[in-house]
Structures are given as structure tokens and as C-alpha cells.
């Protein structure tokens, strides 16, 4: 009886002191520090730092060039060497050359397009865990880092774009009105890459081990999505359950490659047809929303040692 009375008193005292600190802070016009902002304010803070994002992405790119002798040439050499490797491996040795009318064009669109996704995912994933110091020394929301990583990769894609056009034109690919759809396809890929970068960045910030398997997983994803050759045609000969083919055709990687090829290659119709454009928009929306929400919910944990 006596002890419960004492407990009650203690509880009341505790409540009183808690109340008074919070109340006093409130009365003095103070706000609580470290509380997660609302999602709207979080996105607003991101938008307010757009100048920083642009400067950071540009500076990172420049720094990357400075460490290599051929500098910005690598923006072109990287996709070209990848293409050459795939052409020999899959086109020549495995005979994929004959599976589509313009194999070199098919390969070029695949490599250049998937590079946006692959490189966004890879550098986005690293962006937070590799730049903890920046988060603790500058008053910026962590979402800036994966966002800047994606901006950097989109810039790289734009720089390398003339090479893609040159490859297409030199392989006698006709320049048609449907090429105007290509920018739309890229606009759908960017939010997907951003969402993926955000999801992976949060994941990798507390499980750095992901960095070890990510490059392999991304290359396999590219293979399964048909970067190197139309994989669904091979799979359909294997007599696998229908859902396997369904997953292969409508996984985001395959969908984004399909819409780009739909726009740029006259002699190739990807499986799925117009449904690819719908799927591309849906995947963009899902990835961007999931990425932002998941990353935002982890805000406050990123700067920790």
C-alpha cells in the first residue's frame, strides 16, 4: 500500500519534471532537435539544396577525371569497352549476332541504358556509407548524397550520348520519329535509378557487406534483363513455368531496356509491346516512392559512427 503510494508519487514527480522541461521548451519557443522532419519538409529541404547537389555532382565527376590519365575520355571508353567485350562473348562466340536484325545497335542501346541503372545503384549505394564525414560536418539531409550520385550518373550518360547516336547511325539504323520517345524513356529511368539508389543506400549504411556482392548482382540483373542478347527467346525454349518468363519480361531492367529499344531500334520489337511503357511508368513510381519513404525513415541514423 505504502510502496504503491510512493511509486505513484514518483511517477507523478517524473511526469511533472518531464512535462515541465517539454513545457518550458515549448513556452520559450524552442523546437526539439533531431526529430525527423515531415516527409514534405524533408523533400523541401532536398529541393532547397539543389545548388549544392549540382555543385557536388560536378565536383565529384571532376575529381574522378583527375585521378585518371585519360580523364573524361573514360565516359566514352567505359561503355565502348563493355560493348566490345559483350560483342565478342555473346555476339560472336555464343552466336547472338543473328538473333536480332541490328545486333550492334541492340547491344549499344542495352549497355548505355542499363549503365544509368547500374551506376546509379552502385554509386548511390556507396554514397552514404562512404561520406559519413560529410554528414557530420555539414548541415545537409542525408538524402542529398544518393540524389547527387544519381545526378552524377545521369550527367555521365548525357556526355556519352553522342557515341550511342554514332553507333546507331553507323549501323544503318534509320532516324525515325520514334526517337523522340527516347528522352521520355530516360525520364522514366531516372526516378527508378533514384529510388534504387535510396533503398540501397539505406541498406548499405548499416550492412556494408552489400558492397561486396552488388557489382556481380547488377551484372547478372543486366544479363537477365537482356542487355547482351534477347534472353526471353532462349528461356522460352527451356520449357520453364510461365511465371519465369513473366518475371523476365516485366522486371524493371527488362522494361526500361524494352522502351529504349522500342524508341530507337526500327527492326526490333521487344516482347510485351506497349505494355512496357505502362510498366516503366509504374516501376518508376513504385521505386521513387518506396525509396524516398524508406530512406526518410532512416534519417537520423546515417551520420552515426
Amino acid at each position: 500500500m505504502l510502496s504503491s503510494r510512493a511509486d505513484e508519487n514518483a511517477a507523478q514527480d517524473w511526469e511533472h519534471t518531464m512535462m515541465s522541461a517539454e513545457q518550458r521548451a515549448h513556452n520559450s519557443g524552442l523546437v526539439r532537435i533531431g526529430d525527423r522532419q515531415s516527409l514534405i519538409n524533408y523533400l523541401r529541404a532536398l529541393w532547397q539544396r539543389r545548388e549544392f547537389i549540382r555543385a557536388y555532382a560536378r565536383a565529384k565527376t571532376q575529381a574522378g577525371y583527375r585521378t585518371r590519365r585519360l580523364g573524361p575520355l573514360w565516359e566514352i571508353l567505359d561503355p565502348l569497352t563493355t560493348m566490345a567485350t559483350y560483342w565478342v562473348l555473346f555476339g560472336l562466340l555464343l552466336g547472338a549476332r543473328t538473333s536480332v536484325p541490328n545486333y550492334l545497335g541492340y547491344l549499344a542501346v542495352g549497355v548505355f541504358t542499363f549503365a544509368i541503372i547500374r551506376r546509379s545503384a552502385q554509386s548511390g549505394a556507396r554514397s552514404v556509407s562512404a561520406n559519413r564525414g560529410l554528414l557530420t560536418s555539414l548541415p545537409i539531409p542525408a538524402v542529398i548524397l544518393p540524389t547527387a550520385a544519381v545526378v552524377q550518373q545521369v550527367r555521365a550518360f548525357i556526355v556519352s550520348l553522342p557515341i550511342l547516336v554514332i553507333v546507331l547511325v553507323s549501323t544503318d539504323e534509320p532516324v525515325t520519329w520514334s526517337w523522340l520517345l527516347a528522352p521520355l524513356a530516360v525520364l522514366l529511368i531516372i526516378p527508378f535509378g533514384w529510388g534504387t539508389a535510396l533503398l540501397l543506400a539505406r541498406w548499405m549504411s548499416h550492412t556494408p557487406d552489400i558492397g561486396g556482392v552488388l557489382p556481380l548482382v547488377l551484372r547478372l540483373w543486366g544479363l537477365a534483363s537482356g542487355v547482351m542478347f534477347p534472353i526471353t527467346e532462349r528461356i522460352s525454349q527451356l520449357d520453364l513455368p510461365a511465371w519465369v518468363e513473366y518475371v523476365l519480361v516485366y522486371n524493371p531492367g527488362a522494361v526500361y531496356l524494352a522502351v529504349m529499344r522500342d524508341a530507337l531500334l526500327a527492326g526490333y520489337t521487344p516482347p510485351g509491346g506497349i505494355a512496357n511503357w505502362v510498366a516503366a511508368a509504374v516501376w518508376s513510381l513504385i521505386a521513387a516512392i518506396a525509396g524516398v519513404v524508406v530512406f526518410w525513415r532512416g534519417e537520423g541514423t546515417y551520420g552515426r559512427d
Partner: protein
Amino acid sequence: MDATESVEKSTLRMLLDDVTVSYRVHSHGRFVPRRAQQVEAVRGVSLEISAGESVGIIGRNGAGKSTLLRAMAGLVQLDRGAVYASSPPVLLGVGKTLVPRLSGRENIELGCLALGMTRAAVREHIDEIIDFSGVADHIELPLSTYSSGMAARLKFAIASSVDHEILLLDEALATGDLDFKERSMDRMQQLRDRAEAVVLVSHSMSAIRGSCTRVVWIEKGRIEGDGKPDDVIDAYSAESRRRRLDRRQGHRGSDRRSDP
């Protein structure tokens, strides 16, 4: 009652209520990670800071000073308690943070943009900031080539170029040569005149005495002393002396068994 409330409204800038921070330390076994251990760095610190105050935080290495400062800036998750402030406090730490691969100039640009400057303002002030930092000769080199003192100076130059209502400084005054120290003391004075509240962590008692109106002594994550600079620093120095003496006597007593 109303009178005291309105007074409070105009003077209270920061309120720490029972702030407790612990770190999880993962101890690894030979092959697999073992379970995490909790280490409490700050244990139930309550503090009120008013406008115009400049508070020095002193204490031994590992006492929890820097963690407390990071908690004030909202950079660590609290296990218990809360930090309230009139506007988001800005923490100026030292060390080779920012972006090591980028040049000093690029780091200044980025830092100023992050602190809310416009591009035009950055262009206008950048020469002044480079000048103040005293690393003009190395400004085009990557930050990774800087000594830690140079990096700290650059960072202090960036951070102090913008006005802040609440400013948190970690050892900023203890870096650099004598010339820079004097200039940064002047800059500190200016900042204090403009800023409404300053909190400074330092091991330099002369820096604390020279620039603080109040001193808080932290020991094992708890407040050990809080008051006028001279009083608290004297008590802290006496305690440090006593500890040194104890250790020397302890060594003599325990022979040399505990030495590696």
C-alpha cells in the same frame, strides 16, 4: 508567472533534458561477429543555455564532451531525453571531413552552399574565405593532401563565414599556428557578438578562459561542475593534479606487474 514566462521566451536558447547517448560497439570473434555491447557516452545531462552565453565544455579525453556536442546538433540518436533549441544548432567540427578528393576551393564552395549561401554569395565571398583560412597556396590541391591543421583551418574559415544563431565548436581554437589562433580568436569574438549562444569544446584552458562566460565540466558522461570559468577550471585542474599524483603513487605501489 506571466512575467517569468515572457522573460524565458526572450532568453532561453537551448534546453537539454536528461540527454543520454550510448554507442553500440560490435566486438568481433575470430570468425563471426559477436553480440553488440552498449557503451554509455553521455548519461542524463540536463542543461539550459541562454542568449549571449558562451559555454565552454571541459573534461578528460573520452569524458563524452564531443558526443554531447554532437547530440546538441542532432547528429546522434538519443537513448533518452531531448534537446530543444530556438533554431537548428550548427556544429563546426574539425578534422579531414568534408570531401577529401576535392580541392580546397571546391570544398569551400560546397561547404558554403550547404550552409545556405547562394552561388552568387559564394562567388562574392570565396576569396575572403580563402584568405582567412591561410591555405591559399594549397587551395587548388585535394583536401586529402592537407595536414589536419590546414584542414581544420579551412573548415573553420568556411563555417564561420555564415551567421548562426546557435554555434557549436569542437576544438576549433586549438588548431593552427599562433597567427591563425589569434585571428580565429578575433573571429570567435565577432561570432559571439553576432551569435546568440556559443558552445565550445576544448582542451585549451586558456582558450576557454579567454572566450567563455560559463564552463561545464563533464566527467564520465555526467556534469561534474557548472559555473563561472575560473571556479570550474580551478576545480578541474585540482582534480587532474590529484589524479596524476594518485597514478604516480599507484605505479610505485603496484610494482611493474600491470605494465605490458
